[in-house]
């Protein structure tokens, strides 16, 4: 028996999807599992899941070259045709669409004419798209595909390294980089024995150097990062794939949620993380919509004094009691607990009931 999981979203989603795939495989050890991804996923990340055969849909390459005058018109079609025929020849017993998007469903229909979403899938997609829904992506997917998976907890020992991930691929989810400098400097001053690094990709080096010292910047890929993430490491991250990756290593994380990032749906799937979520009237906005304000004003709602106060206690393993939101396990799913209530609207967003069902 052979099954195909389609994970045709972004890097952070792929990392989370693979947690589900591994849990599914554990329950079905005799089944051969293949995974279909797009060309956004870095090769080193794919290699970490090399136990599964991966197929790559070069969707972004197609988009880049589709109307490029020097590319033969028919090439993207020929390339996709080759991939579709290859996948059809695998004769999968089951196809799972972890992306749950129109384009992924359409592609799976090309691989198997009989593919369609079940009623459960349809209702879960509708629930997930509802702005009031408070369920983590993984908890939704595990419900659809009947997968046993409970969030693990962050593990912490004496802190020897703090990593900051302060850039995302989406401007709406960023905080002005210069605002981070004082907090990084004060941490370095207060805890000189702790190694503090600002993470970034090669393409972000110049941007990061405009604010931070070159010696504070750590340019690395996932395989490098995987080698340094341990229980003595802590992460402060915007809504990026790095926080999902760090959760695989149980790294305690402070998550900053602004723009289109949802404080629970898009959180790292790990209990014990602290979340600072901007409370602004248009939050969370749509992933593909532009910020109506140009600059994402919701970022100003993150209180950096409060963040610094929490950060100092958190780094020293002191019991942090003034956190805004903390993730925890509730009935086997990811729930949150809030210490700060900011009016009725805030209460609704962070109610202490189980948020998964």
């Amino acid at each position, binding site marked *: 028996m052979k099954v195909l999981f389609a994970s045709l979203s972004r890097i952070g989603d792929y990392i989370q999807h693979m947690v589900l795939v591994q849990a599914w495989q554990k329950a079905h050890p005799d089944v051969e599992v293949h995974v279909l991804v797009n060309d956004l996923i870095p090769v080193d990340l794919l290699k970490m899941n090399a136990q599964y055969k991966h197929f790559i849909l*070069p*969707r972004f*390459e*197609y*988009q880049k070259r*589709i*109307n490029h*005058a*020097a*590319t*033969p*018109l*028919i*090439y*993207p*079609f*020929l*390339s*996709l*045709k080759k991939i*579709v025929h290859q996948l059809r020849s695998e004769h999968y017993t089951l196809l799972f669409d972890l992306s749950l998007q*129109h*384009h992924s469903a*359409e*592609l799976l*229909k*090309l691989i198997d004419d009989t593919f369609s979403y079940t009623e459960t899938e349809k209702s879960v997609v509708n629930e997930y798209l509802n702005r009031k829904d408070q369920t983590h992506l993984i908890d939704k997917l595990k419900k659809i595909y009947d997968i046993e998976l409970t969030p693990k907890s962050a593990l912490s020992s004496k802190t020897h390294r703090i990593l900051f991930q302060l850039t995302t691929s989406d401007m709406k989810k960023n905080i002005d980089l210069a605002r981070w400098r004082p907090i990084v400097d004060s941490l370095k001053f207060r805890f000189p024995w702790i190694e503090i690094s600002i993470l970034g990709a090669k393409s972000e080096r110049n941007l990061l150097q405009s604010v931070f010292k070159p010696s504070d910047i750590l340019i690395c890929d996932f395989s490098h990062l995987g080698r340094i993430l341990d229980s003595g490491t802590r992460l402060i991250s915007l809504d990026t794939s790095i926080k999902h990756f760090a959760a695989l290593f149980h790294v305690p994380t402070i998550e900053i949620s602004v723009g289109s990032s949802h404080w629970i749906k898009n959180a790292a799937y790990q209990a014990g993380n602290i979340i600072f979520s901007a409370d602004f009237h248009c939050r969370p906005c749509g992933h593909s919509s532009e910020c109506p304000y140009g600059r994402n004003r919701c970022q100003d709602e993150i209180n950096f004094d409060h963040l610094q106060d929490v950060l100092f206690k958190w780094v020293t393993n002191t019991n942090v009691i003034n956190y805004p939101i903390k993730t925890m396990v509730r009935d086997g799913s990811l729930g949150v607990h809030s210490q700060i209530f900011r009016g009725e609207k805030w209460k609704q967003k962070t109610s202490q009931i189980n948020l998964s069902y």
Partner: protein
Amino acid sequence: MIQFLVNKNGKLIPQLNNLFLCSYLRPLSEAEKWLAQFDLRQAKDVLVIGGGGGYHIELLKLKFPDIFVHVFEFRPEVLEHLEDKFKKKQKLALYEISTKADSVFYKNLYKFIDEKMPEIMPFRPAWQGMEKEYEALHNSLLMREVNSLVQYLESTGSNLDFEIRLLNEQKNFLTMKNLVLANRQTGHLDAQILNYFGEFMK
């Protein structure tokens, strides 16, 4: 009649009448500039249109030894020179192209294109004196004009079927969107695969 002149650096430069088929003074920097236009990170096969003095091919082989280089050339003298120059090169194929291409040629050409999907790399300095022929070959490969697309569809016996009237309205430069909109078929898998590109245009 093509002659080969030796420049001040001892490089052989092909000349046709008063035209050089690659830079006389700086063939190597011309090759550098030419190669810099292409992104070959994913390429397994490339198709160089125009042999010239062969310096661009030499550089290409030097920088990308794992890529299979196919060279299309109309002039037998240039081809002879290239055969001599690249005698022992691996992963290199030189093809002499006739100016009187027939349907068998196109059938084989498109079969090659379908199988290898090579990166198309026109080397225009080598086209001098035969610009029209090279341009026609290049257009046949790009299929951005209705005639060349029709030629491709007929030569390959494609399962795709287009409303040519719609394509003709876009005769200067066809795009994938034009193909999706002009697609008349829905039943065949190939047509459904083509329609999938509509997802990218939403």
